[in-house]
């Protein structure tokens, strides 16, 4: 099968806040800008399905700029391979394949939630925090459903408030960080009054929901689906009935596509210079794939990448001051919600760690590296290609995944053969 061919001066991968901001700024130079996203609509995770009803002033401003900018959006498009030397990407869609050539590429592939294994975490209806939120934003009603929200980070509060606005009952938010860390967090937020105000407003929306610190879900129970969870806080152990569990332990950057294209990256994200340029000259990276840090930071990085990729470096440099402030907030977040070591002991020997290949913790404990885990147990060899179990083993055993081989996602043979 021959691919449909297309060309863009600036090709952007990802239509979340960073991708949208970079596309808008690049388009201001007059360049032809094409934005790819594998979801049905732009907005990324945080602004999912908000095009018609933005949840914040910030979102409405950027949706307006984006739709007025004249960038071309290709939704439902998954990038499966690419060639940095020839400056082209292979893109798979529901009914066809595309080959798109570019002058400059901006990767804004975002981040994903980090899951940790515990007994019962593979039961249906135990999901990520952003995962359940995404499903609700995609049409799942949760009115009168009991949802336990657990894990770590400010997303727990935002998601719980969202579920409650949709009519759900959220009896408990279980935050693994201690109250001491959280108190210190609030003090350090004094430099970011807008954030402090946001936190206070969220707490007000969540009156009636118990926010428990130093608290974790130890097990999920149910027959064919989730029915209850077991919580622990200090010596206290108890059971809570629920319809859904929304649980995640922070975020990991989506670096796979950048690595596939030869960009240098580590566990914290793709390495970029102050203009968001990666180690590959024609590839810029922006947003959470270069380090997790929240929406303000993502937008700023996106704007800088969009300006820089189109030679508007003066305009990019004007944003460096704002970027420093956003980085401070990101650093405060990271140090507050650092994962406690008790979370390393949740998995039992028969708890599944790799959900694609059903590899248990028992089989992985004796492995020496990511490579040996793959070779001997098939961990990380299934369709998600280690995107879920990689960050788990990074936390539990200190393993670091090695390079990425094409295709970046499982793809139809017709897509890969030209």
């Amino acid at each position, binding site marked *: 099968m021959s691919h449909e061919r297309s060309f863009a001066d600036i090709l952007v991968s990802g239509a979340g806040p960073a991708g949208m901001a970079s596309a808008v700024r690049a388009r201001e130079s007059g360049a032809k800008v094409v934005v790819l996203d*594998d*979801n*049905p609509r732009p907005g990324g*995770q945080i602004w999912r*399905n908000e095009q018609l009803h933005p949840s914040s002033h910030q979102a409405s401003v950027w949706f307006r700029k984006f739709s007025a900018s004249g960038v071309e959006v290709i939704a*439902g498009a*998954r990038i499966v391979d690419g060639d940095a030397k020839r400056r082209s990407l292979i893109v798979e869609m*529901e009914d066809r394949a595309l080959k798109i050539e570019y002058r400059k590429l901006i990767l804004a592939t975002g981040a*994903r*939630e980090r*899951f940790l294994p515990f007994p019962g975490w*593979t039961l*249906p*209806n*135990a*999901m*990520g925090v*952003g*995962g*359940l*939120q*995404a*499903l*609700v934003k*995609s*049409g*799942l*009603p949760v009115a009168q459903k009991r949802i336990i929200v657990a894990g770590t980070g400010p997303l727990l509060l935002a998601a719980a408030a969202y579920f409650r606005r949709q009519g759900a009952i959220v009896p408990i938010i279980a935050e693994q960080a201690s109250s001491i860390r959280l108190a210190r967090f609030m003090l350090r937020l004094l430099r970011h009054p807008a954030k402090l105000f946001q936190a206070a407003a969220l707490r007000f929306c969540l009156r009636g929901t118990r926010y428990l610190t130093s608290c974790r879900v130890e097990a999920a129970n149910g027959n*064919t*689906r*989730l029915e209850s969870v077991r919580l622990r806080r200090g010596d206290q152990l108890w059971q809570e009935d629920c319809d859904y569990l929304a649980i995640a332990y922070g975020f990991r950057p*989506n670096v796979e596509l950048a690595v596939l294209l030869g960009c240098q990256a580590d566990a914290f994200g793709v390495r970029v210079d102050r203009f968001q340029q990666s180690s590959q000259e024609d590839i810029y990276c922006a947003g959470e794939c270069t380090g997790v840090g929240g929406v303000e930071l993502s937008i700023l990085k996106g704007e800088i990448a969009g300006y820089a990729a189109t030679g508007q470096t003066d305009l990019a440099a004007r944003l460096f001051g704002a970027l420093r402030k956003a980085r401070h907030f990101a650093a405060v977040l990271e140090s507050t919600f650092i994962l406690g070591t008790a979370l390393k002991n949740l998995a039992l020997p028969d708890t*599944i760690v790799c*959900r*694609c*290949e*059903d590899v248990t913790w028992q089989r992985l404990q004796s492995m020496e590296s990511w490579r040996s885990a793959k070779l001997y147990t098939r961990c990380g060899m*299934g*369709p*998600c290609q280690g*995107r*879920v179990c990689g960050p788990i083993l990074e936390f539990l055993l200190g393993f670091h995944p090695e390079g990425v081989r094409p295709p970046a996602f*499982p793809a139809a043979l017709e897509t890969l053969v030209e």
Partner: protein
Amino acid sequence: MPESVAVWIDGMPLRVAAGTTVAAAILIAGQAAFRRSVSGEGRGPICGMGICFECRVSIDDREHSRSCQIVCRDGMRIRTR
């Protein structure tokens, strides 16, 4: 755009609001397990954004379609396992 679309989930008809993803429709239908894992466990979506591959179902005979990233269209035939 029509306000609702009709799909078939495991042979049963279901009407959902336009814009609903296939994954949300399956959950609305009361189905929690979307697929069987290699050792036979029932599994459902966890990431909601096309990364975990736990929401794979058959859509109009295309196996392994990620139901969380595909929007329901009129007449779609969806099969879980």
